[in-house]
């Protein structure tokens, strides 16, 4: 289990298009830059957030937010990937879609790009709402049927179809969060479908309009709980052995180290960057100088 994995990136939706971060530090100093969420061509993305602007509301030690606007894949292909490739910066593409077809379309567009060589990993979002096509003539064309992560079978198919679109050796990861009713089953399904790492987020559904989530330091313990659980399941052989990435409540060097000690090989920073983008470089520096995460056998149930 020595797959390459960036030690720290921004969380999808908290790093802008990746380029904005270049105003605050040297991107080349990082393992990779995450861009996303990347949505299907056209205005509307999965979950119907479209290009609507994100809404953030403060909550004690956290933030309640609507889903970040998706970057249209054509913008990523035309503007962003060339920019990153020209600078030799490896990119993680975080992809979001309501159907396996929508995700496959995005991946195809990315793959067709001449600059695809700069893509080092693809993260598929299982926290977003899945859509099902309705019988013709009934109300709208699609129906939201809850998050992908609530249906392990659907996750397996989604990852398998994503895997097919990508070069065999490209790292494919799946992200699930606090909305997932059975993280073990969903993790198994995601890895069964072809994910080679799991991104575990403590983000939890919150009050207000649908699809609002609570993030920030307040959910740190939820993230660590999820990592601990999946680590234990890996140790018990109930989930295949893949590296884990912790996101949600990782907001400084101390919490990043805590996530590593809990068994995460990598971390993503979200709201911490909104307050101070410099934290990305600080955490990278700190994680570069510590030992790798403990082997699975060290994890107790």
């Amino acid at each position, binding site marked *: 289990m020595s797959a390459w994995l960036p030690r720290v990136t*921004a969380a999808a*939706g*908290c*790093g*802008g298009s990746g380029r*904005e*971060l*270049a*105003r*605050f*530090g*040297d991107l080349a100093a990082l393992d990779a830059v995450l861009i996303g969420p990347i949505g299907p061509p*056209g*205005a509307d993305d999965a979950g119907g957030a479209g*290009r609507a*602007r*994100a*809404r*953030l*509301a*403060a909550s*004690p*030690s*956290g*933030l309640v*937010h609507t889903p*970040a*606007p998706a970057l*249209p894949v054509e913008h990523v292909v035309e503007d962003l990937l060339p920019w990153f490739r020209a600078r030799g910066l490896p990119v993680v593409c975080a992809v979001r879609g309501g159907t396996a077809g929508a995700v496959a379309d995005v991946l195809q567009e990315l793959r067709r790009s001449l600059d695809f060589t700069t893509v080092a990993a693809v993260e598929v979002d299982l926290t977003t709402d899945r859509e099902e096509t309705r019988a013709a003539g009934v109300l709208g064309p699609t129906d939201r049927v809850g998050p992908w992560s609530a249906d392990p079978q659907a996750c397996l198919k989604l990852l398998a179809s994503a895997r097919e679109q990508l070069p065999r050796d490209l790292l494919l990861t799946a992200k699930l969060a606090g909305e997932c009713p059975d993280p073990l089953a969903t993790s198994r399904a995601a890895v069964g479908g072809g994910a080679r790492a799991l991104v575990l987020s403590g983000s939890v559904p919150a009050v207000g309009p649908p699809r609002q989530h609570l993030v*920030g*330091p307040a959910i740190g313990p939820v993230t660590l709980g999820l990592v601990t659980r999946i680590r234990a399941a890996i140790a018990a052989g109930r989930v295949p052995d893949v590296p884990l990435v912790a996101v949600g409540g990782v907001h400084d060097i101390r919490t990043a180290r805590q996530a590593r000690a809990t068994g995460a090989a990598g971390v993503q920073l979200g*709201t911490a*960057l*909104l*307050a*101070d*983008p*410099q934290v990305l470089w600080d955490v990278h520096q700190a994680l570069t100088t510590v030992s790798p995460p403990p082997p699975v056998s060290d994890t107790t149930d």
Partner: protein
Amino acid sequence: MSAPLLHRRAGEVVANRPLGAYRQLSVVLPALATPARPGQFVITPPARADQVLPRTWWVAGERTEPGFGTTLELVVPDPPGGSGALPAPGDELLLTGPVGRGFGLPTTPVTAVVATQGAAGAAGRWLCERLRTVGCAVHLVSCADEPEQHVDLVLARRSADGVILTEPAGAEAALTSLTERVHPSVLYAVGPLSLSRTVAEVAAGTGAVSQVSGVDIGADGLCGHGLCGACDLPLHESAGSGSTVRPCAEGPVLRGGLVDWEAAQ
């Protein structure tokens, strides 16, 4: 990547005094390499440890003295519960900025209108001063819900050739009649999006150009760093279908005519 990196720096608060309904903070930083300009803002960490989002404030003035440093003037709302959440003289204040490209000044002396609202009035007043130094005739339209919320009217009257006070709901009528009277070549807005939209529309109606703030600096729910997407605005179709701008990173000053205000709600 030739632009210097934006880094948080420690400044020292040298004054915190009342200014009508607001507080004026003076902060000394190491000398800025390029002078600040109206329309720029600063980002400062949250006031309390249990808060996640930083605060954003318009820069309301700047003075750089060689060998001493740069003093930034910041006019900020008096926080609820007194000024406790604001730093006191002698305190350190962490700041990123001044951020953004600020307002462009005309290259020839023309007539200009500056519209402001609330605490942004201090940045608006500074813009008036700058416009006057390049020879422009300047009319200030100051919008506020309550009379005492107009920023520093004594100084404002000295910085502009004419000052009109109105409630926000009356901004459009005030701007329309003013433009009919003085025929400005350029209209500026510094304040909330509703004001930016009004100014952009009045300017479009008279064929004048407009430069407006594309993000309501000082409002809640912003990161100011260009990372969260909360300030995104849609552009007109001519810029390409579905194009948006991220004002806190690409502005905050935008050409009013580029934004699709209808789609922005």
